[in-house]
């Protein structure tokens, strides 16, 4: 079943449109920055963008900072919301279950396919943005800053390319776990309703609410538990030494959400009448 889900994912035009759109945004930004050679002031605009002006090697990190807050979660919510509800609407759910595909197995296969989608999207974003960064922004060692070459970490000391690769991989892993949190919300809602749009919208509503509460001082009591609280904690991978606290908190929080919501999704799906 897992193989079948992957075939369905990869043969669906929608998957590739989503990946292409995700890749297009960082390339577009790179083009603007390269042409005008004008980066946002440090501390403003997307993270890292001011740091990449002279060295495109760090551009994948900047690209991920662009797609993680909104673009990628939307894509994940839409796909995960469609996972069960879409099959129900299309009538294929009853044929899969009558085939028979176990309900647990079906959910696991959906989750694996969603993970593969996130990894695929991030790999594509990292790949295209690296190429775009190197081609458009160059790999000049920032001699003017007196650095001996390589990429500068956010804290100052330079990073070797091995270090950079490892940290980019760590980032991809962290973002994947965060996005699985989104997928778990949408997947749970997807087992509740037969409307794929409704499930995706519900998941996005949760994320937007979380984002709004994060900016609200009065909500400080609940902020550490909001699903989007640690989404950008992976930026700490690019400090030297790596600042682990928020990364660990983020992983722990997402693990809780994943366990809770996937458990709820499973319990609901196992006992549900499939009448679509």
């Amino acid at each position, binding site marked *: 079943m897992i193989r079948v889900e992957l*075939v369905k994912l990869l*043969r669906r035009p929608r998957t590739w449109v989503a990946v292409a759109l995700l890749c297009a945004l960082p390339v577009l930004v790179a083009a603007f920055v390269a042409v005008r050679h004008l980066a946002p002031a440090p501390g403003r605009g997307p993270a890292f963008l001011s740091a990449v002006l002279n060295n495109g090697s760090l551009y994948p990190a900047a690209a991920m900072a662009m797609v993680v807050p909104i673009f990628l979660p939307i894509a994940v919510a839409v796909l995960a919301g469609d996972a069960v509800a879409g099959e129900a609407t299309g*009538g294929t759910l*009853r*044929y899969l*279950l009558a*085939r*028979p595909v176990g309900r647990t197995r079906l959910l696991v296969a959906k989750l694996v396919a969603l993970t593969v989608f996130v990894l695929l999207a991030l790999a594509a974003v990292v790949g295209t943005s690296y190429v775009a960064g190197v081609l458009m922004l160059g790999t000049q060692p920032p001699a003017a800053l007196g650095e001996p070459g390589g990429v500068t970490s956010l804290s100052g000391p330079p990073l070797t390319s091995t270090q950079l690769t490892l940290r980019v991989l760590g980032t991809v892993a962290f973002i994947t776990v965060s996005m699985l949190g989104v997928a778990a919300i949408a997947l749970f809602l997807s087992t509740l309703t037969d409307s794929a749009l409704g499930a995706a919208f519900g998941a996005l509503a949760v994320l937007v609410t979380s984002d709004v509460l994060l900016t609200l001082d009065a909500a400080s009591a609940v902020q550490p538990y909001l699903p989007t609280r640690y989404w950008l904690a992976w930026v700490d991978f690019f400090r030297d030494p790596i600042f682990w606290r928020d990364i660990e908190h983020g992983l722990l929080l997402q693990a809780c959400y994943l366990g809770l919501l996937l458990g709820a999704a499973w319990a609901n799906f196992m006992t549900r*009448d499939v*009448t679509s």
Partner: protein
Amino acid sequence: MIRTEALTKRYGPILAVDAVDLDVREGDRYGLLGPNGSGKTTLVRMLLGLVFATSGRIEVLGRPVPRRVHEVLPQVGALVEGPAGYPHLSGRTNLRIFDAAGPGGSRRTRRRRVDEALDRVGLGGIDRRPLKAYSLGMRQRLGLAGALLRTPRLLVLDEPTNGLDPRGMREIRDLLAELNAAGTTVFLSSHLLAEVEQLGNRIGVMDRGRLVVQEELATLRAPTGRVLVRSPDAARAAALLDGRVEARDGDALTVRHDDPAGLNALLVGEGLRVAEISAQRRSLEQIVLAATTTSADRIEAVP
């Protein structure tokens, strides 16, 4: 093959299936009839483990459902409430995907089995067009091909000829009869009386959730003990058979008599001409209409 005891399904205040004791035997061509909304589809879904019963027991192929439904379903081919598939993929790819999704379909023989199933339903020559370009009839055939992929012991078909033209219906009926002769038990639900009458050997009739008739078709349609006679000399025949004529309409008579041949000899012996003579049998339509009340999709205004 299928046996249910006091099977009941309640959706909130609505009793969709009410204490049904279904009995489908090996080798049957069982036709389940009933008006729209009488609970046929809910019953079929419970047999396949898609909908969970409120109370009662189900046994399919000798195993309890839904507890051991995963052992049962690999030997069952199903068509539930119309065919479905992934619209952007071709019919062949759809069949391959569904075959690969579950157990009981060897990967080695998949290509051959898909081609054979498509041949059987008359889609052997389909090209790579996506499913969304298919006509309703083609989809219906593809759905049947999906049900036949693993040569099942039991076919559970909900409205199998929906969307087919008369020739297509005939083809599918012949195909089902052929499969049944080769040992497959066929359980089909339909509201098309003619379809069931021509294919089934056992009939169940559902009405508002209850199974009100379950009987051999031959028994249901046994002669009623009356003979229908059409004769240009109807008036004289009525006089001759005085007391045994139950109804007369122009030159048509309904006569209480067990033996059409004997009656014919009697009439001809008296010099009466007989244009038509046959034993009266109840039509399936009469049986169903007598057993059922109203269509559930008909909602009357309360004065």
